[in-house]
């Protein structure tokens, strides 16, 4: 008997190598043709402390975390209480434990999960240079039926430089683990991989966002590190340079966004990435970008709570500040990727939109997407590129008007180096000719124009991911999309038609498009990962939602699981 999906937790305090083993498991599964997703659970500590690699594998694309863990393998039980709630188990689950590490902690044992003993430490100890994580990897591979060839390729790639001794030690560890597990017959063998189809990628959301920036045409980045956004900046640093762009480490987020505005004012498409606290520091300059009509993209990788909050865990609670945080009337773009792979499309689109509409765009990613790695089909190429409307007829009799009130609201831009286009871009309110003005009519006209360029733009189908039909619909966004999608599909597989609307273009709102997507719907379930149901309130404030509206909203750090959305949907039918 085989299963369609296996969810595995590799648990161990820092140094045990749980993350490395998880990474190798995912890579090996990718090699043999499975899809997968790996997220991490760590505390805010720098090194050491608790760490778990949370891996889900399946022959079909994986949209979110599994309902519960089928397998937990623990190299030790240190600190596991801290995140036991993130490790849901059932009687069908299997806990693999090293007897030398003591009893299975009561919080986990209470689930009634089957317990299997594996002398991990002892097995590793018998091998010169042997490591516990390789023994664990071997055991898990045997349980899920991962072909050895897939692992060999990973070992070769990961350890090739370290020499034969390291490769031999790893192989011996893997052999020892898989030999022990071979006879267990736990019924968790994964259905055969499907190697057909498109090229697959192994990518994290943060890398995908970085790649989206490159593909959109970004050539400048100013960076200030903050978890969980740092990987975007670290990925961009070498890759921007390779493509002729530049990344500079700034002194803080105030400087990062300001530098990006400067680079963009000079005509170079720019991006920065941060998390909630950094976004707060940037808001004044984002407002300057709005008023001075300077494009810029800010990727906000959301995390739990305000201030430092829970810096290594996910949440969608920066929605309010992203949409409403700027002062004055400051219409701007806010978009949210709907999956790890979509971080590429959405960031690339944001670069295109920001440049086309000459305004800041905030990309709301989150920790669950940013720091998770997935095996996905290679994303289709999108046409979206940075293409700023530049002024052409400069130097004639008529003096150039930087903020000309055009029909679309977009004014042809002159950038330094263009004779005849000299002007002062300004956050101070101005007239069409860019000269300071505090007149009511100029303020009204410029505000109208800044809003109109956003509202009159045709965003096409990309405004949302819409799938399914029927009278019941889930409306969601961001990383809540994956589990929602899976729940809707489960409902459909059982014979109840349902729809999914995952809104990618958060602002400006698209009332006509959502109304069409929800036409004929009588029940709406809003799904989001916040405590205060920010997304639900946002929808209520800007849209007419049809029929009975329910909300599934929970703060981090527990990820939303398809089972929970599915059960909520069932309760609504």
């Amino acid at each position: 008997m085989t299963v369609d999906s296996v969810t595995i937790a590799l648990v161990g305090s820092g140094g045990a190598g749980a993350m490395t083993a998880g990474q190798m498991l995912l890579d090996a599964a990718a090699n043999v043709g499975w899809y997968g997703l790996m997220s991490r659970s760590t505390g805010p500590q720098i090194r050491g402390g608790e760490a778990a690699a949370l891996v889900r594998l399946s022959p079909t694309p994986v949209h979110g975390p599994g309902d519960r863990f089928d397998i937990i393998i623990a190299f030790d039980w240190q600190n596991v209480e801290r995140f036991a709630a993130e490790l849901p188990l059932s009687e069908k689950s299997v806990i693999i434990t090293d007897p030398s590490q003591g009893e299975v902690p009561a919080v986990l044992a209470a689930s009634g999960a089957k317990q299997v003993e594996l002398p991990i430490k002892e097995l590793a100890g018998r091998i010169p240079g042997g490591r516990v994580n390789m023994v664990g990897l071997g055991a898990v591979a045997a349980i899920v039926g991962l072909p050895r060839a897939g692992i060999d390729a990973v070992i070769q790639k990961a350890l090739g430089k370290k020499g034969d001794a390291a490769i031999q030690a790893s192989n011996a560890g893997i052999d020892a683990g898989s030999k022990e597990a071979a006879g267990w017959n736990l019924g968790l063998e994964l259905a055969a991989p499907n190697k057909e189809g498109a090229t697959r990628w192994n990518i994290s959301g943060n890398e995908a966002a970085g790649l989206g920036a490159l593909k959109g045409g970004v050539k400048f980045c100013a960076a200030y590190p903050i978890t969980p956004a740092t990987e975007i900046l670290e990925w961009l640093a070498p890759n921007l340079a390779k493509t002729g762009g530049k990344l500079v480490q700034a002194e803080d987020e105030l400087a990062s966004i300001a530098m990006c505005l400067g680079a963009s004012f000079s005509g170079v498409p720019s991006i920065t990435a941060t998390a909630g606290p950094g976004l707060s520091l940037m808001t004044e300059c984002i407002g300057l970008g709005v008023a001075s009509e300077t494009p810029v993209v800010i990727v906000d990788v959301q995390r739990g709570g305000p201030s430092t909050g829970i810096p290594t865990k996910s949440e969608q609670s920066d929605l309010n500040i992203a949409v409403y945080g700027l002062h004055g009337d400051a219409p701007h773009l806010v978009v949210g990727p709907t999956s790890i792979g979509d971080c590429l499309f959405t960031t690339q689109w944001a670069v295109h939109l920001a440049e086309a509409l000459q305004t800041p765009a905030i990309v709301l990613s989150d920790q669950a997407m940013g720091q998770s790695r997935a095996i996905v089909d290679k994303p289709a190429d999108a046409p979206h590129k940075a293409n700023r409307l530049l002024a052409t007829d400069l130097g004639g009799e008529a003096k150039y008007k930087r903020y000309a009130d055009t029909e679309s609201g977009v004014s042809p831009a002159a950038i330094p180096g263009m004779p005849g286009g000299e002007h002062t871009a300004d956050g101070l309110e101005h007239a069409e000719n860019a000269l300071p003005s505090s007149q009511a009519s100029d303020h009204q006209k410029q505000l109208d124009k800044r809003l109109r360029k956003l509202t009159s733009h045709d965003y096409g189908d990309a405004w949302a991911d819409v799938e399914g039909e029927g009278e019941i619909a889930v409306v969601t966004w961001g990383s809540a999309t994956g589990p929602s999608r899976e729940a809707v599909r489960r409902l459909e597989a059982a014979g109840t038609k349902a729809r999914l609307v995952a809104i990618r273009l958060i602002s400006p709102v698209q009332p006509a498009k959502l109304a069409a997507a929800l036409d004929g719907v009588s029940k709406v379930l809003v799904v989001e990962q916040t405590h205060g149901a920010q997304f639900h309130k946002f929808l209520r404030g800007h849209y007419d939602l049809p029929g009975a509206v329910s909300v599934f909203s929970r703060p981090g750090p527990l990820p939303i699981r398809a089972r929970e959305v599915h059960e909520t949907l069932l309760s609504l039918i």
Partner: protein
Amino acid sequence: MDTHLTDDVVGPLPGDYKSDVKPIWCPGCGDYSVLAGITRAMATMGLERHDTVVVSGIGCSSRIPAYTSVYGYHTVHGRSLAVASGVKLARPELNVLIFGGDGDGFSIGGNHFLHACRRNVDMTYIVMDNQVYGMTKGQASPTTEADWCESKLTPEGPGVNPIQPVALALACGANFVARGFSNNPNEVARLIVEGVRHPGFSVIHILSPCVTFRPEQRNWKSTVHPYGREPTDDPNEAMRAVLEDDGFGLGIFLAGNRRPFQPESAATRSIAQIEEGFAV
């Protein structure tokens, strides 16, 4: 009529760098003469207007970009140096000058000042020091004396020591540091020209009276004096001399030789090649 620094120069006139916007400054404000010095400097160097970018923060002095006819970016309070760094790092071929006040530069923008000095991007910062917040109607600034009691916000005086911009710039590693006085636009222009021509980050501290909130600054005319030494390229020597000075010495203190910061970049790989790294 516009005059040239030297009679034999042919080329643009200072007036060519002025916009036709009338400044909002109070009559007698020192910033008028600084503006004159700036446009004179631009004419002296014959800067291409379209290749020149002036960036400012917020304050009376920060209104200058609108009064010039080059490219300008009037940004937000305190962030001008970061915005200007972005301009210059992204487009090294542009001439970048930054204007602002003492509050803008050393209070809200203090951290950016520190890092602009140490980063040493090749641009010129002209900070107009009137030892007061002019635009918000007369509060103490970071260069105001501890016992200045004229502000309603600090009726007993700010009670904290003023910072010394030139010493601060030297301590933070600025590569060119000079002081001028707005009353003498020719000298202001000369310092700006020297600063712009000097590679790296140049700080030109300009005493520019606020006649409205600090009318006593009209006396600066008799307080200022030539600094009296040749510029050195040794920051330690410059610092020692500056600490001995009374804060009113005019001239060039340091013309250092640190290498400007300007990351090079050349396209060596296509995006398609980078993407290949993700393939399973």
